[in-house]
C-alpha cells in the first residue's frame, strides 16, 4: 500500500486535520498521528485511508487516476476573456472616507472615457471569442454616464449569455437610470455599511443623503426583488458596527448575502486609515462573532438563510473544487487573461486593486491599454509568479489546495512579492479563515451544521460533514 502524502494542521485538542494534495481531508485523532509516525497503522486505519483516497492498494488503477484527477481539479484554468470591469468615469457624487479609487470631483474634466476609448472598448467586445460576457461597471459612479453604459450594453447583444453589474452608490436614480436597471440581465451592486448613522459617517456625510440612498435602495429592492440587488459593507476595523444592527440592516432589505470586508489598504484609505495595514486579532474575533451571529439567526428563523459571502466561497472551495469562478481566491491566479479592468483613461489593469495602486501613485501595474492591447511583458512577469504551488510555506500548508495567491495585495502592502508567505496579511487572513471554517465543519452543534449545509447548497442536512479517524 502506498500512503499518499498529507499535510497536517492542528484542529482541536483531540485531533489534527490531515489534507492531501487533492484537498481530501479527515480529522485524525492524536492516536492516529502517533500510529502514523510510528509506522504502526492498524488494518482499520489502512482500510479507512484507502477508502477515503489517502492510500493506494498495490493494484488500484482507479484510485491512482482518481487522485491524479483530484489534484488537477484543484488547479484553476483561465478560459478566454469573458469578464470586463469597466470604469467609464472616475467622477463621483460622494466622497467616502475610505474611497478606494482616489475619486475625481463631480465636475472635474478629463476623467471620463473619451470617444476613442469608448470605440476601443466596443472594438474589444467585438473581438471576443466567447458566447458569454460579464461586465461590471465600476467607478467613480458609473450612473453619471448612462450613455456610456447603454453603448456598451447595446454592443453585447450578440452574446448568448450576458450579465451586467452596475456598482453604484444609489445616490441618484431617475427614469433614465431605472430604464437601464429594468433589463433582466442587469444586476445592481451597492454599499451598505450598516445602520443609517454608520452609513452616513463612512459614506454620505449626512442624514439627507443617507435618507436618499436608503429610499433608493428600498425602491430598487421593491421594484426588482432582492435577487437583483446585492450590497457590501465596508467595515472600519478600528470601530466596527454592532453586529446585530448590521445584520438587521441587511435583512430588512431582503439582502441575504453579506460580504464582510475590512477597509481595503488602497487609495485614500492608505492615507486616512493607517491602522488598516494589518488587520489585527480584534478584527478576526469580530469576524467570527459575526459569522456565529448569522448561524444563530439562521437556526432561529429557518425560513431564511443569511451568509457571509467570503466564508461561503472558502467553504465551497474545500468541498466543491471547480465550481466557483471567484477570481479573488483561486490558484493559479493568472492575470490579464480571463478578466481585465479598463480604467477611465483606457489603461488596462489585471485587477481593480492594481488600478487603485497606480492611481495612488504607489506602483504602475498597468499591463497595457485597450487600444493597443495588453499581451505585454508586464503581464507575463506577473503571471510567472501567480501561483502558490511552489512557495515553500504554501507547500507545507494544509490549506494550499483551497487557497489562492494575490500578487497585487502583496505589492500593495509590502512593495514586493517575495515576502515570507507566513508574514503576509493575505496568508494570515486565510489561515485564520480556513482554521475557522474547519472548526465549524467539525462542530457538533446542529445549528452550525445546518448553516453550513445551506451555504454548501445541500438539499438536506447531513449528520456530519467531515470524516474522522479515531
Amino acid at each position, binding site marked *: 500500500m502506498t500512503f499518499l502524502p498529507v499535510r497536517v494542521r492542528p484542529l482541536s485538542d483531540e485531533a489534527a486535520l490531515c489534507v492531501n494534495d487533492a484537498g*481530501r481531508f479527515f480529522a485524525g485523532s492524536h492516536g492516529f498521528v502517533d500510529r502514523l509516525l510510528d509506522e504502526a497503522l492498524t488494518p482499520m486505519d489502512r482500510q479507512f485511508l484507502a*477508502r*477515503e*483516497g489517502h492510500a493506494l492498494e498495490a493494484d*488500484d*488503477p*482507479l*484510485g*491512482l*487516476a*482518481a487522485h*491524479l*484527477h*483530484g489534484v488537477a*481539479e484543484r488547479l484553476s484554468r483561465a478560459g478566454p476573456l469573458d469578464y470586463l470591469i469597466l470604469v467609464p468615469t472616475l467622477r463621483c457624487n460622494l466622497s467616502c472616507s475610505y474611497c478606494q479609487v482616489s475619486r475625481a470631483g463631480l465636475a472635474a474634466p478629463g476623467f471620463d472615457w473619451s470617444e476613442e476609448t469608448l470605440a476601443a472598448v466596443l472594438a474589444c467586445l467585438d473581438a471576443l471569442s466567447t458566447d458569454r460576457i460579464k461586465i461590471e461597471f465600476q467607478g467613480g459612479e458609473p450612473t453619471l454616464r448612462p450613455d456610456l453604459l447603454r453603448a456598451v450594453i447595446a454592443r453585447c447583444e450578440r452574446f448568448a449569455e450576458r450579465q451586467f453589474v452596475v456598482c453604484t452608490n444609489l445616490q441618484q436614480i431617475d427614469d433614465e437610470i431605472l430604464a437601464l436597471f429594468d433589463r433582466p440581465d442587469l444586476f445592481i451592486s451597492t454599499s451598505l455599511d450598516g445602520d443609517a448613522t454608520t452609513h452616513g459617517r463612512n459614506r454620505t456625510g449626512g442624514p439627507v443623503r443617507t435618507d436618499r440612498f436608503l429610499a433608493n435602495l428600498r425602491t430598487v429592492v421593491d421594484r426588482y426583488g432582492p435577487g437583483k440587488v446585492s450590497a457590501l459593507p465596508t467595515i472600519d476595523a478600528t470601530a466596527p458596527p454592532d453586529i446585530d444592527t448590521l445584520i438587521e440592516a441587511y435583512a430588512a432589505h431582503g439582502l441575504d448575502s453579506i460580504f464582510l470586508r475590512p477597509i481595503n489598504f488602497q487609495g485614500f484609505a492608505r492615507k486616512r486609515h493607517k491602522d488598516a495595514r494589518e488587520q489585527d486579532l480584534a478584527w478576526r474575533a469580530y469576524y467570527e462573532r459575526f459569522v456565529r451571529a448569522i448561524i444563530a439567526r439562521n437556526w432561529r428563523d429557518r425560513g431564511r438563510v443569511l451568509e457571509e459571502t467570503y466564508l461561503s466561497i472558502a467553504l*465551497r472551495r474545500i*468541498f*466543491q*473544487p*471547480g*465550481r466557483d469562478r471567484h477570481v479573488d481566491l483561486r490558484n493559479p491566479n493568472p492575470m490579464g487573461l480571463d478578466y481585465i479592468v479598463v480604467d477611465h483613461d483606457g489603461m488596462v489593469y489585471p485587477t481593480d486593486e492594481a488600478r487603485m495602486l497606480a492611481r495612488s501613485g504607489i506602483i504602475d501595474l498597468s499591463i497595457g491599454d485597450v487600444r493597443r492591447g495588453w499581451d505585454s511583458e508586464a503581464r507575463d512577469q506577473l503571471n510567472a509568479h501567480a501561483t502558490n504551488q511552489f512557495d515553500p510555506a504554501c507547500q507545507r500548508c494544509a490549506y494550499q489546495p483551497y487557497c489562492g495567491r494575490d500578487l497585487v495585495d502583496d505589492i500593495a502592502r509590502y512593495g514586493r512579492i517575495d515576502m515570507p508567505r507566513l508574514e503576509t496579511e493575505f496568508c494570515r487572513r486565510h489561515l485564520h479563515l480556513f482554521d475557522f471554517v474547519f472548526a465549524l465543519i467539525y462542530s457538533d452543534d446542529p445549528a452550525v451544521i445546518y448553516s453550513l*449545509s445551506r451555504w*454548501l*447548497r*445541500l*438539499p*438536506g*442536512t*447531513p449528520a456530519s*460533514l467531515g470524516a474522522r479517524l479515531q
Partner: protein
Amino acid sequence: MIRLTLPALAEAERPFVTRLRIDPNADTDIRDSLLVNEEAAGASFSGARGLIAIDGATGRELDGDVILVQPAPGRVERLLRAGSRTNSLLVTERCDQLCVMCSQPPKKTHVDRFALLEQACLLAPPGMLIGISGGEPTLYKEQLFDMVERVLAARDDLAFHILTNAQHFTVEDAERLRSPLYARTSWGIPLYATDAGLHDRIVGKAGAFDRLERSLATLILAGARVELRTVLVSANLHELPALARYVAARLRFVEAWSIMQLEHIGFAKGRWHALHVDHRRDFAPIAAALDQASLHGIRAQLFNFPRCTVPPAYRSMAIASISDWKRKYMPGCAACREQGQCSGFFEWHPDADAEASVTPL
C-alpha cells in the same frame, strides 16, 4: 404511447435508410423521400429507392423522421424522430451481463446494423443528441468507435450518449478516446454498489466490479464524459450512502450521477416484489446519498421518480427522465403544476399503483 415501428409496404427489396419530408421546397437531400400521397390509413413517400407506404401516422407526424425501411417484414422503424429530444439506436441485443432488473433482456443473436445506423445518424436533424444502447454496444467496440468518429467528424452539430456496462475499455483505448471528437460523446455507465460481491450479483457477472473499476480508470485518463447510473433495488437501497461516499472519493470526474427508480418491464416485471423499493416509505438512504453527492459538488439526479413522491427539498433533483414515447401521466396528474418537469410513469407501469401514488402539486 408513440409507436416507433409502423407497418409499411416498400418497393425496394433490401433494407435502407431514408429521411421523410413533406415540403418539396425544404432543404432536401438525395437520401430523402418526399410525401406523395396521404389518406386516412397513412402516408406514402417517394425517394431514390422507390415508394414507401406507411400506415398509422400522418405525413406531418413523420416529417423529418429518419427511418429504417424493412421491406421483407413490411415495416419501418422510426430511428430518429425529428419531434423528439430523445432518440436511441439499438446496436446489438447481445450482452455479457445479466442484470436482475434488466428492462431489455439480451438475446444471443446479433444483427449487424452499424452501416444503416451510421447512415441514419448522418441524416439526423440539426443539433440532435443521439442515444446508443443495447444489449452492450462495446461488444462491438471497434465498429462502435468507427461509427461515432465518422459521424461526429462529418457532423459537428451532433452528439452521442452511449449506454455501456464498461466491461471492455482497455488502457489502449485512452489515446483514441482523447480525440476531441469524444468531447461530444458521453457514456452512461451503471454502478450498483461499492461492495464488489453485491454489484456482481446484481449484474449477474463475476468480476464485473473489478473490471468496471479498470474501465473507469481508463475513462478518467482519457478525459471522458461519464454519467453514472444506479438503478434502485431492494438489495442496494441501504448501500446508497456508502456508494455516494465512494463516488465522492473515486469518481469525482463524473458529469452526473443518476439514481433510477425501477422500470416495470423485462426481468423486473416478474421480480417486482423482490426488487422494487417504495421510496415514499424509506427515502432516508436516498436523501443521505443525495446530500453526500451534493456536498462534494457531484450533480446527482433522480430518474423515474414522480416529483410528488419525493420530499420537497429533493424535488428539484427529480427530472423529467422518461422519453416521450414511453411516458404517461395519471388522470390525477392533470391538476399538477409540476407535470412539465416530472418524469411521469413508464407506459407499462401498473395503473393502479401509479394512480394510488400521485398527489398533484
